[in-house]
C-alpha cells in the first residue's frame, strides 16, 4: 500500500495514469476500509464463540440458568453494537466533531454522578443505572479521544499556544475525569486513558516539557491521594509481588494468574478443541471476561492465539493507516486515538494473561463479555469506519 501512497504524492501531473488512478480512487471513496471491517467482523465472531464456550462451563457448574444465558446477552449486545457501528459509520465525523465539547462535559457529569449515585460491585463504584446499567467510563474513553483530537486540531489554537497552554486547555480537564475514575477506583481505565492520551500527545507533536510537567502532576496527585488514604492502593503492591513470583502462593494471590498459565500451557499447538477446555470449570475466575484469551489458548492452542493476535495486528495496522490517510487533523488524531484505545487494551490484556505484567482488570476488546461496553466499542469502530470512508487510499 505504501508504494501507491508514494505514487499519489509524486504524481501531481495530469497524465493519463493519474486520471485513471483518480477514477479508481473516486470509486473507493465512500467505501470503508475492507481489512479493518474484516478484522472487526472476525474478531467479534470469534469472541462471541469464545464467550459461549467459556460461559457454558460456568452455567453448567452453577447449575443455574441455561448454558446459553450469557451467550444470548452477548449476542444481543453484538447485534446492537453492529447496528450502532453501521449507524455511526454513516454519520460524518465532522458532524460529531461539533458535539465534542458537550459530549466531553456530559461524560464528566456522568462520572460525577457515579460518585454520587453509582452502583458498587466488588468494592468499586463504577456503574450507573439510568434505564440501563452501564459504565460511564466506557463513554469517557471515546470522549477523551475526541476531545484531544479536537483540541490539537482546533483552528485558532496555534501549535505554540497548545504547547504553552496545554496544561490549562486539556491536561486539567482530562485530569479531572481521571481523578474521578481513580476514585471509583478504576485504575485500569486510568492507565488506558493515560496511555492513549500520551500517545495522542505524541502524535499531536507535544514537546517534552509538557510530559515532564504532566508526569510531575500525576506523581504529585498520586502522592496526595495516597497520603489522604481515600483509596486503598495496598493491593497494587500485592499484585506486583505475585507478578514477580506467581508460584509463591498458587492458591492465594497468584491463583488467578497460575490458572491462566495452566490453561495456556494445556493448549499446546492446536489446543484441546473448541469447547473442550477444562480450566473454565471454576478453575479460572471470569473465564468469559478478562481471561477469555487463556481459555482460547487452551481450546484452540497456539494456532488460535496466533490467529487472534494476527487479527488484532491487522486491525491495528489498518487503524494506523486510516489515521495516516485521514482527511484532516481532527479525523487523523481521532482515528489514531481509537486505534490506540484498542491497542492499549489488547496489549495490556494479553500481557496480563501471559503473566507479563501484574494483574489489572482489563478486558479484551471484541472478546470479553461486557454488555454495554461492547456496544460503545463498536460504535467507536463506526467513527473509525466513517473516517476511512472519507479518505483516499487503497482500502482493499
Amino acid at each position: 500500500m505504501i508504494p501507491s501512497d508514494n505514487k499519489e504524492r509524486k504524481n501531481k501531473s495530469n497524465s493519463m495514469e493519474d486520471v485513471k488512478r483518480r477514477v479508481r480512487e473516486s470509486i473507493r471513496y465512500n467505501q470503508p476500509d475492507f481489512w479493518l471491517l474484516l478484522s472487526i467482523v472476525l474478531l467479534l465472531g470469534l469472541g462471541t464463540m469464545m464467550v459461549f464456550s467459556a460461559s457454558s462451563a460456568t452455567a453448567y457448574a452453577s447449575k443455574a440458568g441455561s448454558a446459553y444465558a450469557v451467550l444470548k446477552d452477548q449476542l444481543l449486545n453484538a447485534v446492537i453494537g453492529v447496528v450502532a457501528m453501521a449507524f455511526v459509520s454513516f454519520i460524518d465525523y465532522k458532524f460529531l466533531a461539533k458535539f465534542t465539547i458537550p459530549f466531553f462535559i456530559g461524560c464528566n457529569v456522568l462520572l460525577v454522578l457515579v460518585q454520587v449515585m453509582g452502583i458498587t460491585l466488588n468494592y468499586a463504584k463504577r456503574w450507573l443505572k439510568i434505564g440501563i446499567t452501564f459504565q460511564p467510563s466506557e463513554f469517557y474513553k471515546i470522549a477523551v479521544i475526541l476531545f484531544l483530537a479536537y483540541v490539537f486540531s482546533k483552528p485558532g489554537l496555534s501549535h505554540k499556544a497548545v504547547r504553552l497552554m496545554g496544561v490549562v486547555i486539556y491536561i486539567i480537564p482530562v485530569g479531572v475525569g481521571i481523578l474521578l475514575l481513580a476514585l471509583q477506583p478504576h485504575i485500569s481505565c486510568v492507565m488506558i486513558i493515560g496511555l492513549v492520551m500520551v500517545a495522542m500527545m505524541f502524535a499531536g507533536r507535544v514537546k517534552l516539557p509538557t510530559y515532564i510537567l504532566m508526569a510531575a502532576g500525576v506523581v504529585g496527585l498520586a502522592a496526595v491521594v495516597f497520603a489522604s488514604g481515600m483509596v486503598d492502593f495496598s493491593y497494587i503492591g500485592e499484585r506486583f509481588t505475585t507478578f514477580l513470583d506467581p508460584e509463591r502462593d498458587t492458591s492465594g494471590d497468584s491463583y488467578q494468574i497460575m490458572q491462566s498459565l495452566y490453561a495456556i500451557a494445556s493448549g499446546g499447538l492446536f489446543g484441546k478443541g473448541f469447547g473442550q477446555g477444562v480450566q473454565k470449570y471454576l478453575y479460572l475466575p471470569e473465564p468469559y471476561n478478562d481471561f477469555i484469551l487463556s481459555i482460547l489458548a487452551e481450546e484452540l492452542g497456539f494456532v488460535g492465539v496466533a490467529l487472534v493476535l494476527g487479527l488484532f495486528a491487522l486491525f491495528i495496522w489498518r487503524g494506523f493507516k486510516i489515521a495516516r490517510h485521514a482527511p484532516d487533523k481532527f479525523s487523523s488524531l481521532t482515528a489514531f486515538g481509537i486505534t490506540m484505545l484498542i491497542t492499549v487494551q489488547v496489549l495490556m490484556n494479553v500481557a496480563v494473561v501471559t503473566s507479563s505484567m501484574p494483574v489489572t482488570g482489563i478486558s479484551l476488546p471484541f472478546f470479553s463479555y461486557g454488555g454495554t461496553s461492547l456496544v460503545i466499542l463498536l460504535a467507536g469502530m463506526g467513527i473509525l469506519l466513517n473516517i476511512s470512508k472519507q479518505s483516499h487510499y487503497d482500502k482493499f
Partner: protein
Amino acid sequence: MAKNSRNVDRDSGNKTKKNNVIRAVMSYESEDRDDKIAGKSIAVCVAVMALLAVLLFRFAYYQFIKGDYYTKKAYTQQNSWRTISAKRGTITDRNGNVLAISVSSYLVNVNQKIIHDNPSKGLTVEQYQEKIAKGLSQYLNMDYNLILKQIKTEGRYKLIAENINLEKGEAIKAWLKEEKIKGVYVDEDTTRYYPNGNLASHLIGFTGKDDQGLVCGVEVALDELLTGTDGRIITAVDAAGNELPYDEVTRLDPTDGYNAVLTIDATIQSMVEKALKETISEFNVIKGGAIVVMQPDTCDVLAMASYPDFNLNDPYAAPPGEDESTWIGNTEDNVKKLYETVWRNKALTDTYEPGSTFKSITAAMGIEEGRINKNSIVSDAPLDLSGWQIRCWRKYQDHGSETFADAVKNSCNPVFSKLALDIGIDKFYEYIEAFGFKSKTGIVLSGEANSIFHTNPTEIDMAVTSFGQRVQITPIQLATAYCSIANGGKLMKPRIVKEITDSNGIVVKSYESQVVRQVISESTSKELMNMLEQVVASGTGSNAYVSGYRVAGKTGTSQTTTSETDGRYIASFCGIAPADNPEVVILVMLDHPAPEDGTSASGGKHAAPVAGDLIEKILTYMEIEKRYTELDKTSMMVKKYVPNVSNKTVEKAIEELKAQGFSYIIADADSSADLSKLIVTEQIPRYNSYVMSGSSVVLYTSQESTRKTVTVPNLVGYSLAEAVETLNNMGLNVHANNIGNVVSQSIEAGTVVNKGSVIELELINNDTEVAG
C-alpha cells in the same frame, strides 16, 4: 490534488472552495508533516507490532517451553483419580506351592461432594445420603450410622469398605446402576490371601492396609519387588470437585508385582511346625522355640519355624494368653504385644546362649589349628581361672582323662576352655568372626538381630564362650555355622529367596548361593563330623538317633543369666544328617522347657528327640535312602512279645506299649476323644505275638468298627530295610528270621489282611561285608 478539496480543512474556515483547493495544494507538504500524523503513527505502529510479537512469544513460551510443566500441574488439579491396586506378586515355596497370593476383590469408596450435590429427584440431600448409607450397610453388612457419618463428612474421598468379594461387589454395582446413584464407586482391589494360615507365618510376613509389607518376613524384605505399580481411574473434575460432562474416563492399568520363589519346602515346613508345636506342649516350653532346617551345600533354608506363631490371614488376633474379649488388635499396645510374642521370629530376631552346641565351633578351631585331634588325650579336671572354677557338668565325678572325641561326646566344659586358652584370645575370636558369629548372616528377611559377645574379652570370657555361655547369638547364625561344618568348611550366606519371576514366570532375578569364606578345611570338617556322629550314636545326643540315617550333632543346655531373664533354661540341639553326606542341618531351640514331671531342661532330653524325629521324616520325604548300619540291623532282629492291652483304657494301653518300645495306631477313635475313658476292645497283633521291636500295635475301641485292611505286597527280592519300610508304611508288622534279602513271605501277596498283622519274612544273607 483536486480530491483534497473535498476535505474540509478546519484551518481554512469558511473560505471558498477554490481557495481551499489552492491552500490544500500549497500546504500539502507542510500539512503532511505537521497536521497529519503519518510519521508518528508508523513509529507507534512498529512499536505495537513488536510488542504483539513479544506477547505471542510469551504464549509460545508457556505452550511449548514450559508446556509440560504447567500442563502436568493443570492435569493434577483437573483430575481426581482413584487407584486400582496392582496385584501383589505370589509367594511360593521351592516346589511352587502357593504361600501367599493376591486375589481380586473390590473396595467401595464415596465422593461425599458429589453425593451432596446430586441428590435423586424428590429427595432432600439428607434423605439421599440416608438412602445410600442404608443400601451400603445392607450390602456390606456394616453399621448404618458409621457409613452415614462417613458420607456426611466434608471432602471428595472416603473409603467405606475393602476386601469385598467379587459377588458382593457386582451386586453393589448393579444396585448403584439401577438407582442411578452418583458418587459411590466400586473399584477393583486385591486382597492378600495366605492359603496355609499359620504356615511359615514369620517367614512370609503379611501386608498392611495399603498392601505394604509389614512387620516381618519376605513381604517386607521383598516389598518393592512384590508391590507392582498401581493403576488409576482418572476423571476430569471442575474446581468444586464435580465430574465434568465429558465421558472420557482414563484408565491406566496396573502392573502386577513380581513373584517370589522361596527356598523353603512347604511340606518340611509343616512337619517342622507340627513337631515344634507338639514338643512345646509336651515339655511345657514356656517361652516358645524355634527350629531351623537348612541344606548345608547351598545354605538354603528348607524350613524355619518359630513358636508362638500366628495366622497370616488374621495377624492381629489375640496372642495366646490374652483376653480375647478385651483385645482390639491394632492399638499401639496390642501391636507392641504382638511384636513381642506371635510376630517374633525367634530363629532370627531373638538371641540366646547356645551352650554346648557352641563346642563344635571351639572343636573346629582346635582341629583346624592342629592343637588337637580326636585321639588327643585331654583332661576333664576342673580349671581354675581368674578366681573362677570351670567344672564338668558331672561335677563330683568328672570324666578324668579321656580322648578328645570322648570329651566332645561327654560335653566336658573344662576340656574346651583349656583348648580355647591353648588357641589364644586373638585366634579364638578371629574364628568366631570367620564362622559369621559377629555379623548378621544377611538372609533376605527383615528383623535379623546381631549377636552379643564380650567387647574386650578376657581369658575367663573366652573360657566360658568356648562352651557357649555368656554370649548371645541367633539360631540362624548357629545353623549357618553348622552348615559350614557340614559342607566341608564353607561359610555361606543363608538363602531364603531362590528367585524372582515376573507374571509370565520368567526369572527376573536369581539369588545364587554365596560362599562367604572357607572357614575350616575339608579334613577338619570330616574329623569333626565323625566326632559329632559319636555324640548322637552313644553320647549326650543319643535321643536324636535315627535308625537308618547317620546323624551327627551336639546338644546344648544353657542357663540364661542376663538380669531380666534370670533362671531361664534353653534346651537345644543342632544336628547334621546324614553324617557321611550331609543333606540337612537342623537346629532345635526350646526356650525354657519346664516339663510337668519336674525333670530339668536338657538339650539331650528335650531338643534331641524332636530333632531325630524330624531328621527321619525330612530325609524320608527327601527320598534319601536309608542305609542301615550293623547296629540298626541287629536292632531289627530284636524281637519282643506284644503285651496284652485289651480291656484297658486307651491311655493305659498307649503307656504300656510305649514303655515296651512299641508304637501304636488307634484305628477307630477321632483325635478329640477322651483317651482315658475309651476301652481297647481288640488289638492287632494279638497278645504274646512275637514281633520286631518297634512294631506298631493297632487298637480298636469298638467291636463294631470295621477292621482296617490292607493288601499284602510282594516282598520277594527286597532287602530287609526295604521290606520293613514298605510294610511299616502300610501299617503291617514284620517278623524276620535274618538280615539280607527276602526269599519268601508268610502271607501271600494280594491277600487282604487287617492292619497290624505280622508278616513273617524269610531272608537269606548274601552279603559278605556288612554295610557301615
